[in-house]
């Protein structure tokens, strides 16, 4: 199972990598939405986890672009968010986000949320 993680924070990327690779996932990383799209252009992944606030291309735009490509209609995209205000999450969902993970996440929850959206 391959996961693409998109976040501008090295700390979060490192923690995701650690948690996910321990759980047996193969982890790809990108530091912003644009780089995430670049990865998706060449790599097959099973699920995407993306931050919202990022430079260059934020998470909302990233999700919109992924869905607009038509290539990834069934690719689950989880939004990483610390926002508890509904609106960020709703924007992410409206853009095509499948679900969300609230930071700070604990490893078990992270994996269980992923398992909710992948086969």
């Amino acid at each position, binding site marked *: 199972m391959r996961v693409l993680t998109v976040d501008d924070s090295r*700390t979060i990327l490192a923690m995701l990598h650690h948690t996910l690779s321990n759980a047996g996932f193969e982890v790809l990383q990108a530091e912003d939405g644009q780089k995430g799209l670049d990865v998706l252009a060449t790599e097959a992944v099973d699920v995407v986890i993306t931050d919202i606030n990022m430079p260059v291309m934020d998470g909302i735009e990233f999700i919109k672009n992924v869905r607009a490509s038509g290539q990834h209609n069934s690719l689950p995209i989880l939004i990483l968010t610390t926002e508890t205000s509904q609106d960020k999450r709703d924007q992410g969902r409206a853009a095509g986000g499948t679900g969300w993970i609230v930071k700070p996440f604990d490893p078990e929850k992270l994996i269980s949320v992923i398992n909710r959206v992948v086969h």
Partner: protein
Amino acid sequence: MSDLDDFKATFFDECSELLGELEEQFAAIEAGDRTANRLNAVFRAVHSIKGGGGAFGFVEMVAFAHAYETLLDHVRDGRIELSDPVTVLCIRANDLLADFVKAARTGASLGPGYGADERAQFDALTRGEPIGSHGGDAGGAPMDEFDIDFVPVMVDLAPSAAAAPAPAEDSFANLPLTAERGHWEIHFAPHSELYSRANDPLLLFRELGNLGELTVTAKLGEIPPLADFEPYGIYCSWELTLVSPTATAASIAEVFEFVEGNCDLSIALLAGANNPPAEPTLDELAALVMPPVADDGPGLSFADLAETLKTEAPVRAPAAAPILLRPAEPAPMSAAEESDADRRGGEADRRTAVQSIRVDLDKVDRVVNMVGELVITQSMLTQQMDDTLRARYQELVRGLEVLAQTTRGLQDAVMAIRAQPVKSVFSRMPRLVRDLAQKTGKKIKLETIGEATEIDKTVIEQLSDPLTHMIRNSCDHGIETPEARRALGKPEIGTIRLSAEQAGGNILIAVEDDGGGINRDRVLQVARDRLVIGPDQQLTEEQIDNLIFAPGFSTATEVSDISGRGVGMDVVLSNIKKIGGSVHVRSRTGQGTRMTLRLPLTLAVLDVMLVRVGPSPYVVPLSSIVETIQCSRADFGRAPSGAKVLRVRGEYVQVVDLAERFELTGGAELANRFVVLCEAEGGTKVALVVDDIIGQQQVVIKSLEENFESIDGIAGGTILGDGNVALIVDVQGLKAQKLHKNAA
């Protein structure tokens, strides 16, 4: 152990960068650039600090960052205007955030009241009150709001999550929240958005199945005749029965959390809860694709439909007809299989290209040291090659030449690893200038040039304090008050220019202001009062300017809390000398002052000229040597004071005989000796008399102070290729001593 410690280290590294970013962005914002990009970058930086802080449970930091972030969010989308007072508050917030980060790093606690004032102001602003309107209730009030706001309710699957507040339009809001048990009936009708967001009913059912015994019945009554069938149409809904002793409305709703609003959903607890379900129970989720007998349908069973579609609609399978569980897109299973095959095909480890890695500085330093030793060994080998050997072993000579080249390349490469742009130090200065301008009531703008100039990390670390002192000095003593400037016909806003450039083997860092220049009369008077110089001693302007570097010297009439404690500039000088650099000051009355730091590109390796004085080898840094002259051709003379001078192209230069200076005997005849003409800081020259010139080479500097003690006129030691120790002559130090001797 500790992945967590690793993550923390990464986090704090990142925090330093983010805090630097904040400084930088606010410097630009202050300068009038309030574009959305800047505000977004600021928001992101605070957001990232909060996000990471949350992961490690730095509660105080997160609470503060959260309140600050909320303010920034309001500023970002225009709900709050970024007025000057708001900017000032933000800059203050950046400081506090840095304090919180520092406290988290050191494990200290700042106490619950820390930053409470500011938080109260954030909250007041976000409530729409004007800045400053908030009174004194700086207590912990924001903490409560924060708590409510930040509890991560959505992934918390524990039963307590049932109490999480649901939004008003939430279709689950009217569900009983008590943990009633038993027999649940769920009606679920997805909207098309559910599919377009890659949610999958099958997965939801799988999860429901984890709660208890699940029966799934697909309602196919909506499926139209084939002629009217739209590939992306939604025709299917489900009735589900869940029998579970533990399930609650909340835990069921939780399963549908991600599809809330994208489906019609009703969840009901059946009366007579313990009745067995009327329909036969199917525990396999695969049951989904086994349609019930479609007795209420349009006379076409699903199996028939699927069969028909297979033959009649070959290209577009019945798109999102949910029953087929996402057949619209390239079938997910086969896609997964393909990607599996891909991976097996040898592309398993293709990952995104790694742009950079982080390495512990100790490791780099070990490499630097080893390369240093390698340089010594290499030069030793070269020295061992006498002419006989050279003639006999030409291959060896060639090999040694290549080795020398490679070593040099390796050295450069290692130094490049340690090199960092001076930006990291420069970026702290706008803030300093702003603060100082505020404190002194002056108007000052800072220009920075050459931020990308790279310099050894160790040098950079040592640069912060001296630069801070220099800039303080410029703000405090250099730039005049706006009134004074107006009276002088200068622009009201003073300018301090901070620049960095590479010049040969050195980096020049200059702090230049357009203030009043050094007040030489006053400097001279103070120097005389304090007996730094004799009462009748005549000094050139340059010598007077250099008095500001004398220990304990201060010209400030009142000691301000900014600079003027009289420890500033001599500390600058000694810090810079410590890292092998020098300081030069040039001032023009009424026009300003320019101080230049000349720093070595790298600390570890020095290009030197090897000379002999008496029986001992000495090395003189090549960067300070102007020329060498045979003594027999040198034009020596006597100054009126009796001091020996050398005349070079009409200029008189101080002579320092190293044999005399270091009290070494066995010197050669003067005529056979050499003069090494060196340029000290400020462009003044000093002529060193040595017994012999041996040659040029590279040496690795070893500190004397660390291993022995500081010696006047000696900048350090080094080990030569033949294993002998040579001392490095401190040209600047020799010249300064000379001045002191005269002064005394």
